[in-house]
């Protein structure tokens, strides 16, 4: 993975020193809150319902074990002993004190981390496939380009005050695990006829109050032009994007207003103007230099079929279920990818205690190559595991309460912090997730239901990705009471779709029963071997409406 050089360390340290001074000036009264707020937001520090919240960037969701241990130490030393992994592959601390923030940032800087651009109207942390570099279906490791984009976008002077925040996601695989079609810019790696790598460039996707599936602005962009083309998109947006209306300021609104054809024309025109003269193309040597950081580790040749692994699955059904649900195909024979679910029954989606973080770091060192990933579904990943080590790894995860076999199942919910923590929320998300987790605690039943994504947002900003869930819940406020609107049929992958609103919202007390009713309807309508989405696409929304509302 990428390691800071002297310049990176000096830059981040300088930034910590700058923010420390700004905090001191705020506490001394030299800065008003109005003056200080944009400065703290640029450093990832929000004020939420109960306390400040610090959002720390985890570039494209990749962490070293050393960095994870530092996150655990910060949780224990300056917070309440846990952290919350987010849908942007970041981590949030819910309870830091203002005067401790410089010390936290200093501790992060020592391990090559920071909180820069985790807020504000700038290019946010670039997200990527959590299986990047190890997925069996991958063309190339997208983190090479994610890192190049990180360096390009960090404190980019022209793009530090965009009309609104800007999110980029990148995948190197045909199967989209990074939800690229609901990002401001989505990049999907392809090869041209000659085998050279490039990207399909998708623009104008997003969730929030106006959910939009992004449109393809360029079917194939040779990879060496990545920076110049993105520069052209950002310049066009920066110039034309609305700044007079917060709700119409994202690039998706601009693309909808001018149309993809006209937007493409303007971007291409800008690109023509800057492409050759600005020397923005990526030199091969620089791409190679960055790619070297992501070179595969030294895998040991493994037996194609590991008998001990197969035997362990036969002997222990619980282990076998975890293998079925939580492990995925690795590009290297004899190796596997394991997802560590942060969705225990009745737990808080995405939360990990300091002890759990340390355990995961230890396991990454012991059984992997010291690398960990964060998924946008709020889970963790150990990307490089010998299949022969999986029984021992699983046993260690069981002991740490980290072996829930529910990845991709109904209880693997995305949930935003909601009204329990967030200043913007209208309704709680986490307790609803906890109750759904308890309702579907029967692991055999959850597996029998097959893949179902169930996502919960506590307000229309849609941080919980409810629009692109198979079953989405959106919290709304009705005269001071929490209600939840249900959407069905959304998905976030390469066939991304926005869910359909099924009908009037359900109260906090009713919503879990309503979810169960949706599941019961699915089971009643399901043909053998169908997933929830397949059934929904075949039968449509009507049977679900009928069981929920008794109408057609």
């Amino acid at each position, binding site marked *: 993975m990428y390691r800071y050089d002297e310049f990176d360390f000096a830059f981040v340290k300088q930034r910590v020193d700058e923010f420390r001074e700004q905090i001191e000036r705020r506490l001394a009264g030299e800065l008003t*809150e109005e003056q200080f707020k944009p400065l703290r937001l640029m450093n990832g520090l929000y004020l939420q319902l109960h306390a400040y919240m610090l959002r720390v960037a985890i570039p494209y969701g990749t962490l070293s074990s050393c960095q994870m241990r530092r996150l655990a130490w910060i949780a224990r030393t300056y917070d309440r002993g846990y952290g919350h992994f987010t849908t942007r592959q970041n981590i949030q601390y819910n309870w830091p*004190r203002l005067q401790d923030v410089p010390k936290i940032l200093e501790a992060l800087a020592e391990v090559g981390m920071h909180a820069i651009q985790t807020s504000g109207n700038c290019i946010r942390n670039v997200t990527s496939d959590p299986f990047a570099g190890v997925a069996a279906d991958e063309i190339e490791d997208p983190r090479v380009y994610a890192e190049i984009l990180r360096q390009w976008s960090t404190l980019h002077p022209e793009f530090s005050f965009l009309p609104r925040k800007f999110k980029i996601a990148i995948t190197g695989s045909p199967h989209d695990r990074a939800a690229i079609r609901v990002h401001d810019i989505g990049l999907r790696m392809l090869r041209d006829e000659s085998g050279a790598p490039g990207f399909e460039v998708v623009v104008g996707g997003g969730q929030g109050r106006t959910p939009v599936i992004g449109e393809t602005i360029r079917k194939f962009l040779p990879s060496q032009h990545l920076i110049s083309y993105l520069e052209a998109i950002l310049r066009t947006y920066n110039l034309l994007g609305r700044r007079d209306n917060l709700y119409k300021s994202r690039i998706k609104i601009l693309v909808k207003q001018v149309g993809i054809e006209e937007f493409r024309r303007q971007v291409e025109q800008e690109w023509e103007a800057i492409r050759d003269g600005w020397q923005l193309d990526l030199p091969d040597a620089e791409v190679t230099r960055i790619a070297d950081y992501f070179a595969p580790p030294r895998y040991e040749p493994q037996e194609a079929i590991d008998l001990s692994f197969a035997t362990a699955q036969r002997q222990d059904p619980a282990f076998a279920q975890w293998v079925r649900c939580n492990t995925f195909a690795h590009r290297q024979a004899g190796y596997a990818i394991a997802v560590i679910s942060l969705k225990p029954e009745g737990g808080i989606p995405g939360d990990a205690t300091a002890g759990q973080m340390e355990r995961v770091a230890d396991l990454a060192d012991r059984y992997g190559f010291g690398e960990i990933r964060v998924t946008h579904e709020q889970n963790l990943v150990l990307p490089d595991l010998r299949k022969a080590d999986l029984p021992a790894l699983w046993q260690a995860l069981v002991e740490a309460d980290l072996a829930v076999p529910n990845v991709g199942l109904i209880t693997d919910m995305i949930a935003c912090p909601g009204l329990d923590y967030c200043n913007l929320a209208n309704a709680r998300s986490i307790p609803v997730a906890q109750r759904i987790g308890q309702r579907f605690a029967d692991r055999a039943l959850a597996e029998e239901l097959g893949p179902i994504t169930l996502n919960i947002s506590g307000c229309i900003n849609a941080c919980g990705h409810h629009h692109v869930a198979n079953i989405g819940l959106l919290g709304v406020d009705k005269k001071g009471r929490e209600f939840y609107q249900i959407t069905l049929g959304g998905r976030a992958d390469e066939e991304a779709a926005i869910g359909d609103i099924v009908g009037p919202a359900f109260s906090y007390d009713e919503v879990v029963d309503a979810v169960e009713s949706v599941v019961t309807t699915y089971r009643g309508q399901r043909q053998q071997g169908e997933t929830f989405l397949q059934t929904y696409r075949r039968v449509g929304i009507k049977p679900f409406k009928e069981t929920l509302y008794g109408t057609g």
Partner: protein
Amino acid sequence: MQSHVMTANGLADGAVVYLHASGRWVRDLQQAVVADTAEGCAKLEALAEEAVRKRLVIGHYLFAVSLNESGPQPIVQRERIRAAGPTVGTDLPAGRQDAEV
């Protein structure tokens, strides 16, 4: 007129605080001063603005409460959660050892 309480967050720690009759800021909603006239609300507003100038609190505002024998009770869920802490079960609010800012 609907009864109101003045709330804010502490500048140093971001904690939820309420204005007390003495002009101090306390963590316990039950100890908050209640205004039920426009003049009373204006007075709380002035005290809060003074506290902002003194860098004690940020983000102050008045919110509606009902009254019962134990004191002011929030009407909307947001204020109930601010007063009592997250409802998620495993992340209880901080102890009352530092009850004032």
